[in-house]
């Protein structure tokens, strides 16, 4: 039947439809200024810092959980990075420790959620507040200038924030991570387990899938990519700010919903997460090109998020009814 196929096709490709739609809209509305090399380079540099977190959050959402601690994990990892850098530790060790810290935070979130069987909303709300409190107390909310330390590490700077043939390295990282996650999600056993866990946990358990382990792995992947995003941001910004990663938690969830994920788990795909994670930053950037006052940009982004979340849910229900 053509209709169900269209609906299924639409929901799987809604992310790219929206991305292309906004791209065309802003390009025409800005008389092609939106596509200027400077603006495109900025987007290619800045979208990935959010995008790599969003694709991991998407994986977690498919498994049926959410993570609100993202906006605390990122500045916490960035803070540890800056402390270790100032202490003169070997760069490779610093990166390893920070990535390990991200994994550990994800592990804590996962273990508490699955073993204590409390909603991930509560667990990660708690860890978000715990991490933020420790961060505020220890850092004194001070901004730490990193430029004078990073000057001595050109390889590190190039590795995370350089350019390859004019393309920002952050974008290459994003593509690589999305590719790896996409292959795992759509072609590997783990991906099927993630879908099964999020789609029907009891049925998945009955099939022998270790749903607790699957969810914990997803939490750890979120933590890992938060740490990577933190390193990218602090190297690019050349300073530690406590507001790094601010609002990433809610925006990542919104990006995944726009990209086709369900808030109840079991639905979503990597292409949608990639496009979805590009849409919010693109809208935030593109709206300034419109010949309208830019006050109220937040409201516009909010309308976009709510509209497509409603549309997404409507289409899911239409498919389910058939």
């Amino acid at each position, binding site marked *: 039947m053509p209709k169900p196929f269209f609906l299924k096709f639409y929901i799987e490709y809604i992310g790219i439809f929206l991305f292309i739609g906004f791209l065309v809209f802003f390009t025409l509305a*800005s008389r092609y*200024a*939106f596509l*200027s090399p*400077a*603006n495109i380079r*900025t*987007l290619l*540099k*800045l979208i990935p*810092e*959010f995008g790599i977190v969003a694709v991991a959050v998407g994986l977690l959402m498919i498994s049926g959980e959410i993570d609100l601690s993202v906006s605390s994990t990122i500045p916490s990892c960035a803070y540890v990075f800056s402390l270790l850098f100032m202490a003169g530790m070997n760069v490779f060790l610093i990166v390893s420790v920070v990535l390990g810290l991200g994994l550990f935070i994800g592990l804590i979130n996962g*273990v508490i959620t699955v*073993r*204590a*069987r409390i909603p991930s909303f509560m667990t990660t709300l708690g860890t*978000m*507040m*715990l991490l*933020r*409190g*420790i961060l*505020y*107390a*220890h850092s*004194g*909310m*001070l*901004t*730490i*200038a990193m*430029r004078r330390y990073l000057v001595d590490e050109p390889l590190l700077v190039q590795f995370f924030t350089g350019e390859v043939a004019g393309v920002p390295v952050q974008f290459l990282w994003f593509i690589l991570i999305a590719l790896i996650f996409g292959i795992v999600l759509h072609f590997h056993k783990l991906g099927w387990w993630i879908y099964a866990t999020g789609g*029907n*946990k*009891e049925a998945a358990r009955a099939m022998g899938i270790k749903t607790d382990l699957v969810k914990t792995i997803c939490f750890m992947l979120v933590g890992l990519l938060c740490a990577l995003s933190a390193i990218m*941001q602090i190297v690019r*910004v*050349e*300073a530690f*700010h*406590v*507001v*790094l*990663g*601010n*609002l*990433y938690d809610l925006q990542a969830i919104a990006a995944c919903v726009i990209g086709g994920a369900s808030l109840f788990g079991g639905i979503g795909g990597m292409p949608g997460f990639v496009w979805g994670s590009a849409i919010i*930053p693109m809208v*935030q*950037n*593109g709206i*300034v*090109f419109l010949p309208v*006052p*830019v*006050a*109220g*940009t*937040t409201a516009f*982004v909010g309308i976009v998020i709510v509209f497509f979340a409603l549309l997404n849910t409507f289409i899911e229900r239409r498919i389910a009814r058939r």
Partner: protein
Amino acid sequence: MTQEKPKGISTTVAVVGIIVGIIIGAVAGYLLVPQAGVATVTATVAGPTVTKAGPTVTATVGAKKPGEGMTFVFVGHWTAGPFSAVVQKGFLDACDELGAKGEFFMAEADVARQVRYIDEAVIRKVDGIVTTIISDTAFDEPIQKALAAGVNVISANADDSQGAAGNPRKSFIGQSFYTAGLSLGQYVAKKAIEKGLDLKTQRVAIFTSFPSSPWHAERGRGIRDGLVQAGADPKNIADVDCISEELATVERVQTGYLTANRDIKLFFATDGITTDRFTISAKAAGAKPEDVFFGGFDLTPGTVDGIMDGYVLASIDQQQYLQGYFAVYLLYLMKKYEFVSDIDTGKALIDKSNVAIYQELSPQKIR
């Protein structure tokens, strides 16, 4: 799908919980346990509180400090950040010098929570309260009740728009947002005119992460008046909402705006993050230092770098350390001798000629 009935906490869960609890306790203890000569700091996320552990031992062992036994409370509207960190440092340093106990609360822009902190401090009969008055009406009654209960209240950093005529607080310590904006607008306009910019026809953009905030409104008004006095057309001056204080978001908006409006040469920002990110955004948009005339507020590493690189003409330093520091001494003197005085912490305009000292003092949370 029905929920499985919980079976009760298993041994595994209990063991994991104990181990996690020990690890968290150990980490928190390591981070928060006082070291010799350092004040105890504890913070909660829902309005961080900083409590002084007690008087610091001075060189003259046994000498009583003048403020011993007194408690002063600072209730700020801020969310945690480098700006409030300096206010807090000034406040705690003064409490330390006087030997008084200092408590520092941040309401994270929640006025109701801010009022609650004030009420709680009044109930505890502290020796003085300093708060940031970010609403012309919400603080009138709580402060009146505090004064009626014998607790002195002063404002710092932000005040009622009508000053003492609008709120019963006893004094104000801080910088006038309006005069700070005015001096910034005048300074940048002067530099732009010297370089041959025609202010009459020039469009101007004022970036902000908090378009509805009182500091943006007043600073923006001051900037506008400064520009208009120099010959600019008020119809050419526009506010630009940078959406949030998240760094990449601000950069995306600023870069996009600079790219879309290459005819605009005159820019301002009314808060710390939008000032901090401007240099990077201007570079990303392909602008050179001579292409832009920019003034902002506060001093963060990005802003200091921008001044050194030539993208930031000047930034206003509120000298917020003094707002925390003088607040304590004023409350102390008010309690003892009923002194009452407003204190202007000034509008230090920082440019290339005097930025060097900030690179030294900023990490110490003094500037």
